[in-house]
């Protein structure tokens, strides 16, 4: 009979983190950027049916990278959590902070006790009544949470993308300007991205609507990008 090999806990955690990071790095990135008209969620995604961006509740959006089946499970759990909370209390009592905590506990639980960690990174965005009130939470595979205020990128090349956003973003940018910035950031160091390969949605600050999440179709994105037929010059107006 062989004695099970002793693995120090530090090593075990390091191996798990390494495993999750590798899985996430393989996927394409997602950006979430604040604008005066609302919050833009944008991903490089050639599929028009397998979404990386989704609606959770009236003012809460979800964006994820990594393994589709894992973040889809988490997305559905989030919708269930939000709808149940809104049903048992009131729609106004569903907050991104509560949802983020539930996600963080779930991810941390899976990271330490399950056979393998979730290979996902998630952004939860909550639309405020003004741009200062917007909240962005970034959740990692191990359940760690960071609170971002203006913009966030997750996925394989998130550091380069964040650097682009950091350099060009400013308060009060229009939706068209952040769509152009998002495309430039996602395509950084690679080919320029076409509208067909982008998935985008906006949490729309326009008053009078209860559900603020609005998906942008390819035509909407093309319109916001300006003149995409001319290629990468399309964002010259930003």
């Amino acid at each position, binding site marked *: 009979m062989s004695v099970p090999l002793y693995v120090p806990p530090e090593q075990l955690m390091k191996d798990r983190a390494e495993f999750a990071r590798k899985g996430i790095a393989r996927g394409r990135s997602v950006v979430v950027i604040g604008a005066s008209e609302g919050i833009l969620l944008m991903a490089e995604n050639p599929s028009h*049916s397998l*979404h990386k961006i*989704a*609606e*959770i509740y009236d003012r809460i959006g979800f964006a994820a990278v990594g393994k589709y089946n894992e973040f889809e*499970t*988490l997305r*559905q*759990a989030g*919708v*269930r*959590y939000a*709808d*149940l909370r*809104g*049903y*048992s209390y009131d729609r106004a009592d569903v907050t991104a902070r509560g949802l983020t905590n*539930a*996600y*963080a*506990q*779930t*991810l*941390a*639980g*899976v990271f330490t*006790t*399950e056979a393998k960690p979730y290979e996902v990174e998630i952004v939860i965005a909550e639309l405020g009544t003004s741009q200062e009130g917007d909240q962005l939470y970034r959740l990692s595979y191990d359940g760690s949470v960071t609170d971002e205020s203006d913009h966030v990128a997750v996925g394989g090349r998130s550091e380069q993308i964040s650097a682009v956003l950091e350099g060009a973003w400013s308060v009060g940018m229009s939706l068209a300007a952040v769509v152009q910035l998002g495309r430039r950031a996602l395509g950084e160091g690679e080919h320029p991205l076409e509208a067909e390969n982008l998935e985008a949605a906006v949490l729309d600050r326009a008053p009078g609507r209860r*559900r603020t999440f609005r998906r942008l179709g390819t035509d909407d994105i093309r319109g916001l990008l300006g003149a995409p037929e001319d290629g990468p010059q399309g964002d010259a107006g930003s």
Partner: protein
Amino acid sequence: MNETHTGFGPAYLSATTSSFTEFLGRARPDLVPQLTASVPGAELLAPHGTTIVALRDAEGVVMAGDRRATIGNLIASRTMQKVFQADSDSVMGIAGTAGLAIELVRLFQLELEHYEKIEGTTLSLEGKANRLSGMLRANLSLAMQGLTVVPLFAGVDSAVPGEPPQGRIFSFDVIGGKYEELEYHAVGSGSGFARGAIKKLWRPGLGRDAAIRVAIEALYDAADDDSATGGPDLPRRIFPVVYTVGAAGAARVDQGEVGRVSARVVTERTEEEQ
């Protein structure tokens, strides 16, 4: 799924259902609306909502309801809303025990929104009507105690793929039976009178404004003969709640417009009687 985690429980992570009520039954059965004990005479103590009418027009459907709720011979409310938007392109009206009816509306609206978010697509109109029928059947034990809820559901749908969308109306009985109505329908205590009025005024292909007028006249006639149905209340400016559904989706008709049409109906009836 391992039970030792905090965070989302197994009902959240492993459920494959797109139905909110089904999920609620699993995750929080205590929140599912139900009466655990039978309350003698409950049907006499709880407020009742009354007449709802719906009719097809050239663009889709119009649904309207009066504002009165009663407890026996007393008026419990003059301003109750009994017609609601179910989702972006369907509406529902409810007659019967008010508390249960409002809860059914809330749950049904959430059911449709939940499905839409989980599946990323909306249910077909027929699918929505079947779901409502299932939710009524789940309330059978309440119906047996006399606490009945009778909804009316309507929306636009293309019955044949490729055809232009048209208005469709579904009525239900207390045990969840679903029936499609081809022209118009009314539910609630004043429904007999309302249906009689619509029968004389309705014709195929009515315009939107004409259809709104027919709905308001029908409610006026119901209020004329049924004490549980409220007529247009001109001094307090309380008028029926009217929704239209067309190709552009469901929308509530502005109270100012309903007020003007109601006032015209009242004026014309007054002249007729003189």
